[in-house]
């Protein structure tokens, strides 16, 4: 049963959408044509310099994907580029530019950097690694690679680099066109990727890695794959460079070149693809013309401009242009929202025997401070359990232990019979746990629809080349959207939502995961009365089906009394009471705890 719901009135934007989908191809074709005939009008100097600039621009695109979109600040692309270039030069020197030699060179230039990229990715990204750490590793990689090149003796030509190897049989115009085509293909592919649903995952990763993991996406795998893939692209650029210039040198792999790439991307405008491409070409071309006359001043100007742009205009020059463009009437265009579609919930009723959540003798300490001790808890489908207790009772810590098996704790936690010790959050999500954070955790630079689509990614996948026209959500998630009016705001960027709307969106995202167990940390904090009622209704409806259990941490006792099927009281890290609403509300102990008497 697949029920379609025409939600919005503006769904009839199909022609416009088709046009905008074709636009990149048209632009790319025009650019290819223009660059194809460009060598006829440019002098040899310009052709030569621009050939290299365009190869560098390919690298800028990879840096932009990593840094501008996925938030991984990298200085390492130079190393992958250098390895591709050296692999090419060494193979071509040994076997000549025979078809076999060239094929081997292409393969090596792609595979060798990609393998190193995998290793670097493994080193840089692990559960709880920091972006800073990844950046510093990316700085170490080119330094080590250059050191190896230096000590490579005749193999690598040491500091002199390699020169005089056979290259592809092209004239300089041929290389210009080859570089132009390569740049256009890479940029177009990147463009398609970032505009597609799958590209949203990159931005999501940059915005909020934790939320990605708690949607069941594996941020590490994504980051490692991206690093390896883009290392391969950089290696191919190295292949082209070695052929076009006929020489490779250690500085092509050096970290100074890596930082230069970042500077070009920053000035051009990170996260815009075209900005870095044009920025790289313009700056590199300008440098070829100006740096001879004012070598030190040039560096000084570039450095100053870089600092100024980072502070004052983080979006780079492309952002400035973009703002001007959007200020024009033609530049303002509202994207069409996807059509909302109801999906029948996929999870079948769980086996009756096994509780959804079973906690046995759980204990957790931060150093000498014991936060949780001797917790035993069992929760079955259909239950709506409220976790109450004063500040510092250990409620949030308990939630954290339930959703992240890498938290060091003692005792056992099992979800649906599977122990979670050592499991990362995304794998626990895979077991059917959804977690809503205390402070709404959504993707600030994405639209409402994109956030929801990412929540469905583990179930439905993401379109790698385009934007799906429909958005299928479980009925419960649709209900949340409808009750909070978010269904009319699908294209709105989430950073523009109100506090309550963000909370509702996060709830909808968690519900869209179709979890068996929902963990909610103070879902009503800071919400209006009406919003609170809505959320209560949703939760009750969810658990009433008898397939889903919910655990919520709550301070608002009235709210708790209204919706809970069971209440668990934590105090000073211990579970002091576990019973029905009547049991707990009537309890003397609870009154003492909340009146502050038992605080010390």
């Amino acid at each position: 049963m697949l029920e379609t719901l025409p939600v919005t009135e503006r769904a009839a934007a199909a022609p416009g959408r088709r046009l905008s989908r074709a636009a990149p191809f048209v632009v790319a074709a025009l650019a290819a044509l223009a660059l194809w005939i460009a060598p006829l009008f440019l002098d040899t100097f310009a052709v030569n310099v621009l050939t290299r600039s365009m190869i560098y621009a390919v690298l800028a695109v990879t840096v932009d994907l990593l840094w501008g979109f996925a938030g991984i600040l990298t200085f390492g692309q130079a190393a992958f580029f250098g390895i591709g270039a050296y692999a090419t030069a060494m193979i071509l020197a040994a076997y000549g530019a025979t078809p076999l030699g060239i094929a081997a060179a292409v393969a090596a230039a792609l595979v060798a950097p990609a393998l190193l990229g995998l290793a670097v990715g493994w080193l840089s990204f692990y559960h709880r690694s920091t972006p800073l750490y990844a950046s510093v590793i990316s700085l170490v990689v080119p330094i080590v690679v250059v050191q190896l090149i230096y000590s490579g003796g005749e193999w690598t030509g040491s500091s002199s680099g390699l020169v005089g190897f056979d290259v592809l049989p092209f004239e300089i115009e041929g290389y210009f066109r080859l570089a132009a085509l390569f740049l256009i293909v890479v940029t177009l592919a990147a463009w398609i990727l970032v505009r597609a649903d799958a590209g949203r995952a990159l931005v999501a990763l940059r915005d909020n890695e934790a939320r990605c993991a708690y949607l069941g996406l594996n941020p590490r795998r994504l980051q490692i794959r991206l690093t390896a893939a883009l290392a391969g692209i950089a290696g191919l650029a190295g292949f082209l460079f070695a052929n076009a210039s006929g020489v490779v040198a250690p500085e092509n792999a050096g970290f100074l070149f890596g930082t230069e790439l970042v500077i070009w991307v920053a000035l051009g405008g990170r996260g815009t693809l075209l900005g870095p491409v044009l920025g790289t070409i313009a700056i590199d071309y300008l440098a070829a013309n100006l740096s001879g006359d004012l070598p030190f001043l040039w560096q000084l100007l570039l450095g100053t401009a870089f600092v100024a742009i980072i502070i004052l205009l983080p979006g780079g020059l492309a952002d400035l242009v973009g703002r001007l463009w959007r200020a024009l009437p033609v530049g303002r265009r509202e994207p069409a929202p996807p059509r909302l579609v109801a999906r029948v919930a996929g999870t079948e009723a769980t086996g009756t025997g096994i509780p959804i959540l079973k906690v046995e003798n759980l204990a957790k300490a931060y150093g000498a401070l014991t936060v949780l001790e001797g917790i035993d808890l069992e929760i079955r489908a259909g239950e709506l359990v409220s976790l109450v207790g004063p500040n510092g009772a250990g409620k949030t810590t308990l939630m954290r232990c339930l959703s992240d098996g890498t938290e060091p704790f003692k005792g056992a936690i099992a979800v649906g019979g599977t122990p979670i010790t050592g499991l990362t959050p995304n794998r626990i999500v895979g077991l059917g746990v959804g977690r809503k954070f205390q402070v709404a955790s959504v993707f600030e630079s994405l639209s409402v629809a994109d956030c929801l689509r990412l929540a469905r990614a583990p179930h439905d996948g993401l379109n790698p080349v385009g934007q799906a026209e429909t958005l299928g959500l479980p009925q419960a998630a649709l209900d949340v959207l409808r009750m909070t009016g978010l269904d009319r705001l699908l294209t709105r960027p989430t950073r523009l939502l109100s506090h309550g709307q963000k909370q509702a969106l996060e709830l909808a995202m968690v519900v869209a995961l179709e979890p068996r167990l929902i963990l909610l940390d103070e879902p009503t904090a800071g919400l209006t009365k009406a919003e609170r009622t809505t959320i209560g209704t949703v939760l009750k409806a969810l658990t009433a089906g008898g397939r889903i259990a919910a655990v919520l941490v709550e301070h608002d006792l009235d709210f708790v009394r209204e919706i809970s099927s069971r209440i668990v009281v934590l105090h000073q890290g211990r579970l002091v009471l576990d019973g029905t609403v009547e049991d707990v509300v009537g309890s003397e102990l609870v009154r003492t705890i909340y009146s502050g008497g038992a605080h010390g």
Partner: protein
Amino acid sequence: MLLTLDILTTAAILFIVSIGLLAIFGVLKIINFAHGAWLTVGAYCAVVTAKLGLNPWAALPLAFAVGAALGGLAEHFIIRPLYRRPLDAILATWGLGIVVGQLVTLAFGRDVQLTPNLYAGTVEILGVDYSAYRLVAFGIALAIGTLFALIIERTRLGLSARAVIMNETLARSLGIDTGRVRLVVFMIGAGFAGLAGVLLTPLTSVDPNMGVSWLIGAFMLVMVADASYLALAAACLVFGAAQVLISTFVSPILGSIAIAVLAALVLRISPKGFSRA
């Protein structure tokens, strides 16, 4: 014997070079890429001191003052606006490093500068002739470490800084002016870096790029130490020893990348580095 002295003095020099970076990393949670430029500025203070005909040791207070003053300006105009964008702050410090390097070049030229030796000659210690200055440097490292410990453990600033390191939000809610702590710590960190620049002059060439070669090692040591000066001392000893041993018994080329590679692996395996102990 020679090996032991080499390890101890290498560790001491690494400690001197990275302590300023550690202070900044601890409180501001950013790696200051302009650290190399700060070292360079410090070393050029030694050049200026020599040109003025002053006692070479007078360069120390001058370098600290100049480093701190420039650090204050940098914190106010560059780091503070980027408080919420830490990766951008790092990039901005890299840009600042380029600018400072080029300004030094414009002012002094690219040539290697002549600096007077702070402490020349050798000392016979336990049967080997050893560079007197390296032994002095070891003593200076101990002194700097002690001074640093006193600031951290015994002063109001140290208390505030520790609070900010542990939990900045909480520190602010306790009425600590975290903005001021960040400023003062950045100034002190930059001051220490300037100091280190002077102390490097008897060991290395003084030229506009001199700082760069010390950068990566210092970064890695500080990341491993994770805001604890005791952990930094331990890291300097362990990785300094690794560098010396690998250089001596395997190859100086591998030795020179030993710190970076080993520290990266240590962080991968134990993300909290040496600070857990």
